[in-house]
């Protein structure tokens, strides 16, 4: 269980994390979603006591991180796969971490086996590919067999096989009753793994909901219709009790999957249809709408126009 209460981090004027309050429960995978620069990593660093919060509080099973005497058996974290001394072998890297927490040395071989790095255990970490580095980071997180696991963008830069492996790993860890907290900026990835969603944008909490609710609310299906006999079609649908929404252009939209019914009605009344297509709004779209206001770094298709009063302040000075 991770509990955040009004957690805030300011860097000078810039607010990176703004009064975040939510809890991460055991037994499920909780997805932590937000665009780049939303404050996900900063939040995770504060959970781990690496950064000091400007205000607010974060507790792990009721304790502050620095009160944990053997933190690796409480919480295992993969923050940054590169947080390794490249000159040290995978085995020695894990060994020094195990020693610092009094974890039995045999666990090093066990986790190396779990992540499939046994063959390269004595090789220097700087020779590792990105995926191998990610696996080493996950091995470090699993070392203490912790109750809580936290992964920051674990699938970034992995090949499909690695992504598949991480997804299954996270699900099995949660199924054992552990708390699994995983960040991503990809809604599609979260839809496949997470049971619960926490969405932030510009450091603020935008949503804290179960995945099922999020899908129910946002993944709406509808039928898109275009017809040259638009008014007639509207009358017919209205008589039949079908609610129609006018979409952009000359298109109409009907919520739900009623394409067959509409097609039959049109035939019966001899209405010409130019389009009758079932549509599905993706979760990705829903996520982008949710965070559209708060995206930190927009890419511009065209160069931004120069404001009309550009240079006015300079001239006046």
């Amino acid at each position, binding site marked *: 269980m991770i509990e955040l209460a009004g957690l805030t981090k300011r860097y000078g004027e810039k607010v990176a994390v703004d009064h975040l309050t939510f809890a991460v429960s055991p037994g499920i995978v909780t997805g932590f979603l937000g665009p780049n620069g939303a404050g996900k990593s900063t939040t995770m660093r504060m959970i*781990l006591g690496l950064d000091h919060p400007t205000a607010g509080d974060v507790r792990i099973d009721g304790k502050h991180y620095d009160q944990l005497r*053997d933190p690796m058996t409480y919480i295992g974290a993969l923050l940054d796969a590169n*947080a390794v001394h*490249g000159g040290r*072998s995978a085995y020695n890297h894990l060994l020094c971490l195990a020693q610092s927490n009094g974890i039995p040395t045999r666990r090093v071989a066990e986790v190396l086996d779990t992540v499939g790095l046994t063959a390269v255990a004595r090789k220097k970490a700087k020779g590792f590919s990105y995926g191998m580095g990610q696996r080493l980071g996950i091995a470090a997180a699993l070392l203490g*067999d912790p109750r809580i696991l936290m992964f920051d963008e674990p699938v970034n830069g992995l090949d499909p096989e690695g992504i598949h492996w991480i997804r299954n790993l996270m699900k099995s860890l949660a199924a054992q009753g*552990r708390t699994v907290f995983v960040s991503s900026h990809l809604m599609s990835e979260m839809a496949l793994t997470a049971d619960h969603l926490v969405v932030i944008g510009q450091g603020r909490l935008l949503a804290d909901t179960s995945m099922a609710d999020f899908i129910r609310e946002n993944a709406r299906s509808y039928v898109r219709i275009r017809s040259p006999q638009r008014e007639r079609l509207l009358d017919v649908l209205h008589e039949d009790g079908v609610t129609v929404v006018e979409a952009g252009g000359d298109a109409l939209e009907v919520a739900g999957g009623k394409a067959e019914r509409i097609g039959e009605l049109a035939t019966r009344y001899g209405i010409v249809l130019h389009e009758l297509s079932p549509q599905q709004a993706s979760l990705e779209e829903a996520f982008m709408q949710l965070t559209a206001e708060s995206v930190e770094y927009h890419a511009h298709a065209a160069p931004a126009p120069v404001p009309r009063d550009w240079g006015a302040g300079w001239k006046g000075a």
Partner: protein
Amino acid sequence: MSTHQPPMPQAPAAAPEWQAAPGGPYPGYNSPIPVVRTHLGHALASEWTKIRSVRSTMWTLGVFILLVVGIGLLAGFAVSGSGDLSGQSPLTLGFFGLLIGMMCIITLGVLTTASEYGTGMIRTTMTACPSRGRVLAAKSIVFFVIAFVVTLVTVSFVAMVHASMLKGHGASTPSGGEWLKATVGISLYIALLGLLSLLVGSIIRHSAGAITIMIGAVLAPLVIALFMNASSLEKVQKALLEYSIPSQMGVFYDNTLSSSGPTGWDPLWIILGVTAAAYAGAYALLQSRDV
């Protein structure tokens, strides 16, 4: 991980053996791994593994031994071949190798802390051991012991070689006090200088920057003093010369660049004070800064 458990919070009665497990009222997975209350000993073991498992340790210490022994033997041969020490102690010849060799100890000291910032390892370290003071203490102790032992063994070896080599070349027989200063004394000094470098590395968080600062601290006073020829600056020049690190090292061999200034064991107390101040500064910064 072999114990598969139902996904949702379990009834506490179902698992009496878990009662001492972490989490108390908080439900969730309970590991079969025994819970250990960690202490400084764990951090020391971890830092020992870290320092022995990177190649830079072997390199810097290897070059250190090579320089101290090599230059020491060369100096010994030069004197035994041609000259006469005219009543000086044979131990003074150990000074030259150490003067260059200390750069290696400075480098290793800086790398012990600063390289973790360069590689990002520090975040892993601080996550594994949230007590930052404990991490700094463990690093300091492990490094200090290694630096002291390696320096003591190397310097003592060179001193014994010099003493036997130069018998009958006009060298005096060094007293017990002279032996102590030229072995244990100078080793403590070098190890403290290395520890100071480690602390500067922790403050600067950048290997190249910290090494530059430390080498500057060693050389700058001498170089600056060379250019202070104005008579009004005579006192400053003298102080810079006397209190420069090479000159203070010479005190352990009664081999100073000047007749006044620190004598006896003074240099050791000076570097002890400076290192203690740097430790306090590094500790305070470590506590207050984000990793």
